[in-house]
């Protein structure tokens, strides 16, 4: 890799040295700037999800408001300003002629894949091998999805790419060499029952009319709704991991990691290696309870490499002297003298006096995922609730086909399954989508297909065992106070929502209309699933495919000017 190239950017008049290829958020966090935006009530917000979902890292870049710092890549000097989420003053603007749908370019690929993560890419490779004409779109600046996030800066000398990066790079490379058309930086913001999908990037808006569609949009992290979860410096585990794995930046020097599941352990290792002080790694589950050993053995049989990697993470964390706590759930966060203080409860007794209070500059929360199934649901694909995993799953046949003809789905957007399962499922769907288009399977392909089915079954067993080790129920708003925010965008409190529920207002749509919850820029991604569970619990029912908000286009905000044809700045 070449020498790191620094680019000077400006933030509210202050000069900051950034690395070419990192995001604005990474550069600002590295400069210790965690407060990026201000809410209408005056509260400070900053990078939270790190993946373009929460819409709280909004800044003004070169005069253009409402830009997500976590998605904006630096490739030239830019001027950045903190933003009021209530809105900025408009730029002077000349009026452009209105357009109609007929002015939108139409593209008709054989197979359109939405999401360039492990699932989408492996399907692209399998289908392309058989001759299918494949287009893969992804909103992120670089293909790879979450698991295969690539390093985007040239400063990898000190911390070269690891196996996970390299595996991903090989998959991306294979897809490109086979002639898969990958378009990064391209958001699919609408899917319509007419079979049209609309995508926008910095150059144009395109309407895709594919013969087959594969939706592989992954997952995002569930909110951990406790007092203080909206403070700047409190971010998801995934956000911190993206800072490190893509830009080789640390969220802060002193970090607390709290959550449920192995991703937190991986982050603790990575940040430690990167030179951060991980003050504590707190796991909600009792990972060393009776029975865990049998599950560990089962995992060892199915995916020994993953177990060994995990063992290696644990060893490194221990060696670095990171203190770990089991059965500990983060219950509230306070900002005191410029530091964040985290309180924990004992998951069994719910008492706060079991654990000491920890202080750090950043807190990473990783309490599970929500499937990014907005497009699938907007299209009307059937879903069902899985009470054991406490999440909505897409109803699929063994080939990954949804209830709607011509639409396939795989990976974490269909229900959490992990990267390995997404890889094998992608292969299966890739082959089956190809045969449905009339492409034939050679004997070799047939062998590969049945091998993929076996591998997928093995990975599912692995995931099952992993979930038994990390078994911990959804937390929802159980640890919130009445004045804890549930809807980050519209600043609606848990108490406000509870009042409606207790007044027998049990329709999620009516609660939305009464409180404005879910009416903000993140479109209810964090409050929606929690409210859905709160209502179900109150009614003594389990959620179902219709008890959440019905997603509608745009599935992510889209600027009006970006719909207009013609080159943009």
């Amino acid at each position, binding site marked *: 890799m070449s020498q790191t190239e620094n680019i000077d950017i400006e933030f509210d008049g202050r000069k900051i040295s950034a690395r070419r290829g990192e995001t604005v958020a990474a550069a600002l966090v590295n400069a210790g700037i965690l407060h990026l935006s201000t809410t209408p009530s005056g509260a400070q917000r900053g990078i939270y999800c790190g993946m373009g979902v929460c819409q709280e890292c909004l800044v003004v870049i070169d005069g253009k408001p409402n830009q997500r710092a976590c998605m904006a890549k630096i490739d030239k000097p830019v001027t950045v300003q903190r933003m009021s989420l209530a809105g900025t003053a408009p730029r002077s603007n*000349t009026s452009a002629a209105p357009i109609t749908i007929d002015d939108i370019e139409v593209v008709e690929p054989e197979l359109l894949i939405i999401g360039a993560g492990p699932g989408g890419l492996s399907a692209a490779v399998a289908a392309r091998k058989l001759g299918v004409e494949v287009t893969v779109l992804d909103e992120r600046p670089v293909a790879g999805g979450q698991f295969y996030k690539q390093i985007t800066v040239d400063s990898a000398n000190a911390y070269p790419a690891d196996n996970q990066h390299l595996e991903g790079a090989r998959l991306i490379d294979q897809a490109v060499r086979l002639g898969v058309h990958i378009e990064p930086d391209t958001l699919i913001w609408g899917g319509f029952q007419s079979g049209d999908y609309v995508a926008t990037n910095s150059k144009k808006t395109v309407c895709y009319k594919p013969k087959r569609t594969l939706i592989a949009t992954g997952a995002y992290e569930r909110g951990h709704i406790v007092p203080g979860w909206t403070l700047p410096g409190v971010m998801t585990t995934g956000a911190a991991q993206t800072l490190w794995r893509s830009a080789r930046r640390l969220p802060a020097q002193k970090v607390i990691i709290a959550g449920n599941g192995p991703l937190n352990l991986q982050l603790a290792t990575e940040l430690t290696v990167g030179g951060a002080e991980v003050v504590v790694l707190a796991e909600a589950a009792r990972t060393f309870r009776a029975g865990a050993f049998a599950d560990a053995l089962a995992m060892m049989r199915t995916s020994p490499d993953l177990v060994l990697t995990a063992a290696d993470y644990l060893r490194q964390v221990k060696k670095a002297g990171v203190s770990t706590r089991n059965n500990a759930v983060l219950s509230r966060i306070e900002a005191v003298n410029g530091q964040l203080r985290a309180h924990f409860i004992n998951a069994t007794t719910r008492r706060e006096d079991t654990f000491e209070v920890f202080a750090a500059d950043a807190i990473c929360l990783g309490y599970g995922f929500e499937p990014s199934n907005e497009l699938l649901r907007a299209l009307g694909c059937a879903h069902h609730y899985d009470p054991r995993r406490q999440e909505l799953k897409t109803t699929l046949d063994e080939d990954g086909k949804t209830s709607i003809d011509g639409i396939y789905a795989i990976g974490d957007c269909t229900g959490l399954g992990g990267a390995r399962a997404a890889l094998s499922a992608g292969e299966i769907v890739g082959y089956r989508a190809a045969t449905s288009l009339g492409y034939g399977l050679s004997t070799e392909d047939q062998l590969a297909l049945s091998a993929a089915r076996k591998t997928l079954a093995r990975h599912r067993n692995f995931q099952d065992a992993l979930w038994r080790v990390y078994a911990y129920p959804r937390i929802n708003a159980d640890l919130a106070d009445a004045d804890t925010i549930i809807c980050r965008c519209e600043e609606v409190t848990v108490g406000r929502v509870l009042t409606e529920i207790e007044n027998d207002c049990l329709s999620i749509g009516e609660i939305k209309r009464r409180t404005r919850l879910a009416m903000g820029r993140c479109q209810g991604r964090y409050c929606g699933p929690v409210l859905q569970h709160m209502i179900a619990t109150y009614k003594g029912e389990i959620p179902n495919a219709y008890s959440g908000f019905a997603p509608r286009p*745009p599935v992510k905000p889209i600027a009006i000017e970006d719909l207009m044809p013609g080159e943009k700045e």
Partner: protein
Amino acid sequence: MSGGKGIVPMEKAEIAIVGGGILGTVLAGFLAEGGAQVLLLDDGKGGGSTVNAGSLHVQLQSRFMRMYPDQVPAIERNLHLYPKAVNYWKELEKKLRADFDLKMTGGLMIAENQDQFEFLAGKCEREAELGLDVRMIERRELQGFAPYLGAAVFGAEHCAQEGKVNPLLANMAINKWAVAAGVTVMSETPVRSIGKSASKTGFELAIPSATIKADRVVLAAGGGNRELAAGLGLALPVVSEPLHMNITEPAVPIIGHLVQHADRPITLKQFSSGHVVIGGGWPAHLRQSDKYPTVELASIIGNTTLAQHIVPAVAPLRIIRTWAGINATTDGRPVLGEFSAMPGIYAAVSGDAGYTLGPYSAKILADIILGQPPCEDLSEFSPDVYHAV
């Protein structure tokens, strides 16, 4: 709607109102205040009142004039209702001691060229004769009056009596008031059919797994009215028009008026929260599987890019939501009153811009039902014209 779980269904009501939109709910409140025992039934699917844009329209909408030229005489005859209806919104806000976020911003209908300007000038003259507070504004004056309008705007017709409410706030306050006035609300309760009582006078309403008796029944079910009336052998020919809406993320206050176009479907305004609401008659469609109103890509593209053409400052704003709803009207006029062919059954349909007209229409009908002296010439609103056809 409140109510639902926990409320023991009433078996018998003096007056049953089918449909808990703006018209049905305000009517229920007035009737309860007038001493009647009122049951309000709503299927919870939400009609125009839960999805509308909250524009308080007064001047003739040129969209309707172009689409339904044969309705223009009826609309003109009823034009005087609109300023009264807007005033009535103010009275209602005061009466309920609530905050509807009601703002009398005034409305601008813009022209892009001389032809459109002249069309508006003709319309303006006619409206002035009919008593509206309207005037034409030329480009030069507009630059100071509405500086947010783009270079494409040639001139505009201004109507001082127009404004906006926030339907979310208004509906919530109105529901609360109706319940406090004594209305029993059954939400999530579809009325499958209405029939005459076999034995006695009065009517029977079939709801899932029960029958409700009522002395009198009001059809305030928006798009559901046609079928309910047909079941009684009556004609109430409401036409359902699925419409599309867009809303952007918030911006600092930019747009000071309700903005429309002389020749193209659009309404554009900014809520106090900073969000810009863009709608005005772009089509939605009914989903095949369940007839649910569903948004359209062509409407997102066409409606929002037209908005930035008129108000360039909205160009960098991102659309955060779109939705669709059903606008149910008959032939542009309000239909309010008792069917002569079936005493005890009342029609309740507002005219065009039915949210604007909602509370005032409710007041007119409440007076009829309670036998109070009417405040308007009721012959204009009779449902009998349809039955006669």
